[in-house]
């Protein structure tokens, strides 16, 4: 019995149950049950996967299955996971689970919010388990569209503008992506849309690869906040409600990196090798530029959004290095950034929910007012700037070591440039921490504010534990993703 379709079935069941739910209690019950089930399922999958691997299953993809659903175009619902997707599924489950608690008290239209939220997660899960180009693209779109409503309806600030911008830019990316996918399909002359079969054929002529690699890479890169297609990120994140920011930065942006790796590079290897330098330059710019922009922002969410640009830039950067270590690092960075950013956005949302401002110039001394959130924020900050013992350090170091092992001056130079981001990160993180958490509270209104409620504490603790677990015991994840990375790289 293949358990992967359950990842789709549970969200669908949740959607139905939410549809029928009558009041907020039922809605919450559905969400908690569903997301807990998903979490349990992905933990089970992870364990089972590792056991299968240890038992000597050496196929690239495990749990594979395929159901044809549109013969004439060879579109099938084919599924399968390797170490990378398992890790991503686990990440998604954690974020969906914690995101549920982070939006525990969301008003108004809680039911509708969760409906879209679940639909988004449905898309994410579907994307990670699919191995069929078209199905993947379909789930990708499923994940993107709810974003518009989630931001446009439940957001804050210039929400309509941001939602529109985010959606348009991501849709623009999808357009590129669709072209890329069609190019791959027709270029390879394949009679299947299954990525592994296309990869095995390795029949796409080089000149076609040159056209479609950039398209596909940029298509996914938009979602991965590739410079200069990252500008949806600050506005989108700033206006999105807490759990949407979490899910978006935590999981959705990972779709970009994952897709770049799994589709763009895997299926178009020659072009990937030849054109990588262009994107390496772009991602290097992303890394440093995002960090530098974050330094002079004054809105908490903007700071974090730019920080995401920088960190996600590092993911793409590492992928393009095409060494096993760097790519493993990239996956680790996706996990790590997913968890850390989710934590960050959760905390920012909670702080914003109390102070009703995100301007760092207006807040001071929050450590005294809301110690739990402040300590959480410091931990998130330290994790973000790469403190050993948290996931960020492991990921960044793996990336840097891997990137540095490409033996030529260009790669070395960009690696060193990318390294500087760790200093800049420290600057903007500490700037914020020093500004808003430390010092004496000077706003009398803030002094009356309360600390975290149980659901918020739960969210924060869950995420901190995950971040720390990944940082302290990275070897199992590194082994888990290592095999997947290896088989993809062997094709490039």
């Amino acid at each position, binding site marked *: 019995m293949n358990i992967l379709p359950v990842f789709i079935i549970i969200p669908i069941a949740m959607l139905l149950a939410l549809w029928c739910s009558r009041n907020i209690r039922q809605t919450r019950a559905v969400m908690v049950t569903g997301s807990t089930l998903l979490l349990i399922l992905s933990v089970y999958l992870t364990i089972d996967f590792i056991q299968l691997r240890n038992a000597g299953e050496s196929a690239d993809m495990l749990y594979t299955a395929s159901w044809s659903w549109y013969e004439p175009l060879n579109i099938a619902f084919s599924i399968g996971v390797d170490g990378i997707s398992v890790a991503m599924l686990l990440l998604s489950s954690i974020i969906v689970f914690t995101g549920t608690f982070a939006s525990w008290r969301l008003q108004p239209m809680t039911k509708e919010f969760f409906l879209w939220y679940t639909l988004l997660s449905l898309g994410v899960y579907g994307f990670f388990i699919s191995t069929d180009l078209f199905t993947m693209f379909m789930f990708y779109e499923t994940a993107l569209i709810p974003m518009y409503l989630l931001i446009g309806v439940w957001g804050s600030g210039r929400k309509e503008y941001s939602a529109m911008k985010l959606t348009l830019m991501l849709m623009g990316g999808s357009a590129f992506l669709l072209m890329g996918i069609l190019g791959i399909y027709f270029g390879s002359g394949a009679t299947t849309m299954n990525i592994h079969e296309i990869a095995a054929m390795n029949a796409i002529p080089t000149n076609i690869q040159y056209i479609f690699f950039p398209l596909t890479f940029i298509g996914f890169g938009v979602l991965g906040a590739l410079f200069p297609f990252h500008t949806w990120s600050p506005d989108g994140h700033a206006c999105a409600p807490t759990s949407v920011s979490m899910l978006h930065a935590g999981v959705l942006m990972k779709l970009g990196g994952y897709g770049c790796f799994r589709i763009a590079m895997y299926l178009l290897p020659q072009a990937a090798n030849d054109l990588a330098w262009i994107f390496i330059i772009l991602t290097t710019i992303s890394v440093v530029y995002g960090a530098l922009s974050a330094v*002079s922002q004054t809105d908490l969410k903007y700071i974090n959004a730019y920080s995401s640009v920088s960190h996600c830039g590092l993911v793409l950067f590492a992928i393009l290095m095409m060494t096993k270590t760097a790519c493993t690092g990239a996956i680790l960075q996706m996990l790590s950034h997913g968890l850390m950013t989710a934590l960050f956005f959760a905390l920012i949302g909670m702080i914003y929910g109390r102070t009703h401002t995100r301007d760092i110039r207006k807040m001071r001394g929050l450590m005294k007012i809301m110690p739990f959130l402040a300590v959480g924020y410091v931990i998130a900050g330290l994790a973000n700037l790469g403190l050993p013992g948290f996931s960020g350090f492991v990921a960044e170091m793996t990336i840097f070591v891997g990137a540095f092992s490409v033996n030529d001056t260009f790669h070395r130079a960009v690696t060193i440039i990318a390294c500087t981001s760790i200093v800049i990160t420290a600057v903007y993180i500490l700037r914020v921490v020093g500004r808003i958490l430390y010092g004496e509270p000077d706003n009398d209104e803030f002094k009356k504010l309360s600390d975290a409620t149980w659901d918020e504490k739960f969210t924060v603790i869950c995420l901190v534990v995950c971040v720390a677990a990944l940082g302290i015991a990275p070897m199992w994840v590194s082994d888990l993703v290592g095999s997947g990375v290896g088989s993809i790289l062997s094709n490039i």
Partner: protein
Amino acid sequence: MEYSILILALPLLGFLTLALAGNRMSHRAAGITGTLLLLAVTAISYFTAADYFMAGRDMNGVFAETVPYNFKWLPLGEGLSIDMGISLTPISAMMLVVITTVSLMVHIYSLGYMKGERGFQRYYAFLSLFTFSMLGLVVATNIFQMYIFWELVGVSSYLLIGFYYTKPEAIAASKKAFIVTRFADLFFLIGILIYGYYTGTFSFTPSEAALTGAATVLPTALLLMFIGGAGKSAMFPLHIWLPDAMEGPTPVSALIHAATMVVAGVFLVARLFNLFIDYAPETLHIIAYAGAFTALYAAVVACVQTDIKRVLAFSTISQISFMMVALGVCTGSDPHAGGLGYMASMFHLFTHAMFKGLLFLGAGAIIHAVHSNEKCRMGGLRKYMPITHITFLIACLAIAGIPPFSGFFSKDEILAACYEFSLPMGIFMSLIAALTAFYMFRLYYLIFWGKSYYETELARYRAGEIEAEPHKPHEAPLTMTLPLIILAAITCLAGFIPFGEFISSNGEAYTIHLNTKVAVTSIMLALAGIALATAMYIKGESRITVAINRTLRKPIEAAYHRFYMDEAWLFVTKKIIFNCISRPIAWFDRNVIDATFDKLAKITHKCGTFVRPLQDGNVQSYSIFFLSGALLIILILLYLI
């Protein structure tokens, strides 16, 4: 030596307990928990060190490296992996002793010093974290583990310096400390990357073959690592964080900025000493010159500071530089021929940790008594604080290099090594040693001699000139004086430890013998420095002092402002990086890149507006378009047929 894992486990346990459950504990319970755990760690460390040295030398006559633990923490592919473990070498055993001793003293001392402070439990939690990371750093089995703990040390010092998080200066200082050291760590990291790639391992002792292959890049890699070390060890121009870091609680200064964290750079160079000597002797000399310059710079600045902790901070920078110089002047690995500096450096590290810890703790006691860091609020304290006075004097004598206190022995070795390297270097360092004696005694006299601020104020109060009765200075409680006494005792005796028996550049036993010429010179110079200080400051600021101050007003002013190094850095960071790079980039992002996409959207909208009239609902227009289209198609068809 399996029990050695406890050295790391216990402080970590202490940290976790205090951090998670600290708020539910009373101050007393938290303090005692922390201190007892550290006592245990100290005992185990002593035992480990003893065990290590007692195990005796191996066949080559050296203390072999023992690795009780080592496991692969993170495989990085291509043969590289990050290992975690515990490695014992002579210097790490020595460091264990130093760190746990000073840390224990600080723990005990803080019971009194921090009494009643808000966040007492947090303080102890951070102390445990710091001790954990520092111990992890010194027992690292490989350079990457060292880097990991190096970063942890950075963070825990950030937390400790910023302990008074409501004080703006403390916030700024902690931030500065972290960022400056982080900046240096960047170079360290790059150094490690180069090293790891070319030697194929992160181990301190790669195989001969790997080293030969990497010989061309090793000097660069080692230099970069040294820059990392220079950041932590506050070498010029990365020293700027250290004086500011004095905003932290004084015991923290004693722990971090006197005895442990700041010597991490020295330790790093010492740990990599064999590589330096064999593959990058030139780099070592660069270190020597950098150190010598820093030593001079810091000593000069120390002469004119008014905040007693700042004086101590600069004195620390200067003394650390002595250690760096000692390492840098080595030209070979034989202690009899060019390798003396290594032993001298480690020896000085050991003795300095003790007496500098003592000085800081003493300063803490004084600050505790007069509630100020400024020298003008002190003066004549010897009557009120006899124990502090005596112990402080001992430390001052030690740092000035007066026998039989420990500083004399170690500094003498350093100077001997410098003379061995070159005469100018020797003379230069001797003069700085004299300068050290001068500024330390200046400090001593200003605190304990001269006109008492309290008495002056009391007189004014009696005369009705001021309202409030001044606070009478009092001797510190036992929890604070006990560490002072213990450290003073160590300072008196440590010089007689046959240090060379345990640690030397090639591991073989080396008997310390005093170089009479060097010793006599340095004692004379130290005495001269003390004499000058006595003449100038024993009765407050004498006429000579005032005269000197007046004639040298400009240079003194400059030195007081640390030769404007902070301003220079501030200019670079604030003006150039923040205003000229970051701001424009943020602006660029909003107004160029983002605007481009907005413009795209606007253009699309414009196009939409442009074609909208075509769909205005006017059937006539529709029909015109329809017919034109149809005609066009017909024409095309005709053309084609």
